[in-house]
């Protein structure tokens, strides 16, 4: 993050459209951990994630779950709640307390 001496006077923002560079995933308490061997690549987490924080690979015939984009994940846990393997006891997404 930039320092006081680098800020514009009056707290104005001169760079239009810079919201895309703002990392909003810095205030979570829990963080999802991806357990790849349990993943069935159903894309439920990708559909339910409110912050587009699920990283997927769409280069093949079927999309593949790759992991979590931590820049934007708020740690809400919806992905782990909706994950079908979790409901069967073989968790592909596990919420753990984040150590900073």
């Amino acid at each position, binding site marked *: 993050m930039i320092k006081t001496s680098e800020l514009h006077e*009056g707290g*104005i923002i*001169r760079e*239009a459209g810079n919201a895309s560079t703002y990392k909003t995933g810095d205030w979570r308490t829990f963080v999802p951990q991806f357990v790849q061997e349990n993943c069935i690549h159903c894309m439920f987490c990708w559909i339910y994630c409110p912050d587009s924080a699920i990283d997927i690979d769409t280069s093949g015939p079927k999309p593949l779950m790759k992991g979590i984009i931590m820049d934007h994940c708020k740690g809400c846990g919806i992905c782990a709640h909706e994950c079908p393997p979790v409901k069967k006891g073989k968790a592909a997404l596990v919420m753990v307390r984040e150590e900073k």
Partner: protein
Amino acid sequence: MQQKLVALSGNEAVAYAFKQARPHVAAAFPITPQTEMMHKYAEFVANGESATEMILVESEHSAMSAAVGSAAAGARTFTATSSAGFALMWEVVYIAASLRLPICMAMVNRALSGNINIHCDHSDSMGGRDAGWIHLFSENAQESYDNGLMAWRIAEHMDVRLPVMVNYDGFIISHTADALHMLPDEAAWKFIGPYKHKYTLLDVENPITVGPLDLTDYYFEHKTSQLAAYDKVPGVVQAVSDEFGKLTGRHYGFAEEYLLDDAEMVMVILGSSAGTAKDVIDEYRAKGVKAGLLKLRMFRPFPAAYVAKVLAGRKAVAVLDRSASFGGFGGPVFTEVRSAMYGQKVPVHGYIYGLGGRDFDLRQVATVLDNLQKVAAGGQIEDVNLLGVRL
């Protein structure tokens, strides 16, 4: 510089000063005793003497909001208020300073309610002393006019870019006809000059965002950036005042030092009361009492280093406040002066006087001067005292 000697009320004098700056926009709502100032300004506009766009708003909150929008758009902007009007502006007063907008405001000092009172004290502007504005005080119509001209140069200086409040006492200055020298319009315009913006919302080639949400990650840095701006204000105020002095022959600084050179005892005061104090100090001087007066002109930013230096080595100092800080240790000027004097062995005592327009008379000044002599001789008095009230 040839100047015209005129008789005007303080309100008219400030209206003329602001007109001479040729502001683009004025947004104000009437409140006693400020009303007459905006009446006069509206007359200029109606007569075609001023091209200022007047925004007739429905409240002071709207007046300051319109001023903020106008200044952010890159227009030279002013407003004017008093007392409860300033209180209603509150939220936006802070925003004007935080956004570093060089708005000028005529603050015709009046007591705050309750009970409701229309007369002078400084409780209105003092409530806003931490809001980030530059506060200039005036003793009479001449100083109100002069501050009304210099305010633009200070506010709009590229190292400052902060709003300025020109304080003058309600009724005592605002409604009293007083003789003053006015600059010709062209000379005033040459001194103030055209407005230059630092940023503007109207520049579509370079779009900006003003006043976005600012949370735990950046708010502190933005406030730190704002704090640094106040260090640059005193130098600019002095430079602008020096230039003004050369032009008009009227010299200003952070304060007026009245008979201070050899003064053993000093009164510190703001505004119109300084005139009364000077008269009584003259009487005491004639009796051989070495008393003097420090009339603060710039209260924000508070010139702490200057005050500490100018009061160093005195035998006693009395600070007079025309406002009470309820629950605080004395009035706002007293706490600042005493804090600035930390580490010095100069006794500093506070007085609260003149609330709600209570006349500040010669006897009150005499009481203060008598107490100063008592303290200078090693006597004890209360830290904070009251003047001119029935107990």
